[in-house]
Each structure stands twice: as C-alpha cells, then as structure tokens.
C-alpha cells in the first residue's frame, strides 16, 4: 500500500510536524502528574504522529519510524509493563499495584507512588499508541488487500 500522490508540501510539512507532535506527546505523558494529560492522551498523540506519516509519505517509508509488525507486540508490551508493575509489588510483599513496595531506594512513600503512576502511564501510552497504529495497518492490509 503506497500513497498515490507524493505531494512535496504534504511530505515536508508532516515530516516537520511529526517530531514536535511526538515531543508534545511525551510532555503530555510525563507531565500527567501536574496538569491535564496522561497515558491515554499521550498515546493517542503518538499514534496521530505516526498515522500522519503513514498517510503522507506512504506506508513503506513510514515503516522506518514504526514497523507494521510491531503494532501488536508493542501493545502487549505496554499492557505487560502495567501488569508487571502490579505483579512486582505483589512479589515484594505488597498488594497488587501498591506502589510503595517498588524496589527504589531513597524515595519517600508518596514519591514511590508517583513513580509507580509514571510507570503505568508509560505502559498505557505504549499500548494505546501501538494498538491505534496496528488497527490502521490491519484495516489497510485488510482481507481485500494483498
């Protein structure tokens, strides 16, 4: 699946915009503690930047940024980061997702909770980004496709 029209304005604009969208997505994810934002929103922004490249420069070149075969595995990895954080606290003597049992030294109980929230937000954002891109790729490849 390659895009039929290679408009240089579209290609240049999307290639310029994509890094800034990704940077803003990281800001939304990591600033979720202090303002509006979080894993779901940041993951959607990351997916938007990749899908914009998919639409403008074509599937083949945008695969340099995110391969088609990565979608489902990275989504599973995100969910595993989330569940793994919970299981880690479970193994270390706490309850599921009880973040102050995380094995990080020199952090107070509240800071450990903050770190745990950050960990699972990263997992959520990975899962959301990968699944949104994977659904687009699945639809484009489709039963009617090649």
């Amino acid at each position, binding site marked *: 699946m390659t895009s039929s029209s290679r408009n240089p304005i579209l290609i240049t604009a999307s290639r310029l915009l994509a890094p800034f969208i990704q940077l803003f997505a990281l800001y939304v994810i990591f600033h*979720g*503690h*202090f*303002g*509006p934002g*979080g*894993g*779901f929103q940041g993951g959607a922004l990351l997916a938007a930047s990749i899908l914009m490249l998919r639409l403008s420069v074509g599937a083949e070149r945008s695969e340099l940024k995110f391969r088609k075969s990565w*979608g*489902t595995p990275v*989504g*599973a990895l*995100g*969910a595993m980061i*989330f*569940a793994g954080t*919970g299981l880690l606290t479970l193994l270390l003597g706490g309850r*599921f*997702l009880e*973040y102050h049992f995380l094995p990080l030294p020199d952090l*107070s109980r*509240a*800071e450990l*909770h*903050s770190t*745990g*929230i950050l960990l*699972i*937000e990263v*997992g*959520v954002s990975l*899962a*959301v980004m*990968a*699944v949104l891109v*994977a*659904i687009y790729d*699945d*639809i484009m*490849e*489709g*039963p009617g*496709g090649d």
Partner: protein
Amino acid sequence: MRKISLIALVLFGALLLYASSGLPGHGDPDGPSHRERSRAGSPVAAAHYIRHAQGDAASPNIVTVVLADYRGFDTLGETVVVLTAGLVCYLILRRSP
C-alpha cells in the same frame, strides 16, 4: 409502530429533562458526591480523595492519582480492553499467510 416509538421517545426525553432539573448544580458543596458522609452514613470516596491525593502520591493532579493509583486495577482493565480491540482487529482483518 413508528409513531408509537416516536411518542415513547419524546415522552422518555421529557422525563429525562424533568429528572435533570433535580440534579445538584456543578460544584454545589451540598451535592451528594461532595458530602463527607452519604445519606446512609457511609463515608463518601470523593472527600477522601480530595483530602489525601497529594499526600499519598506527591502529585497535585487528583484525576491522575484516582485513575492510576486508587483505581489502578480499573485502569489495567481499560488497557487490556484497548489491547483486546487491537488483537481482535488483527485476528479478523489480517489474512493468514
């Protein structure tokens, strides 16, 4: 049949509008979700969250703390739902080689 369903729809909409006039206003301190104790006498969760969120998680964003800490298990379920949607699209749409 369509007329009957249309009339029922309008009546139901009017009922909902009438019921919404009894809801408490936004930010009403006497609203049921902002009280310390519910009418049955049990403590209300919202007051606990507002009072303890920053001390529990060193984060001024109460929404994030509720989403990822107090209700972390719920958010795990949401993530699994998203992942399941992706897997189902993969299974249905990709042709097996």
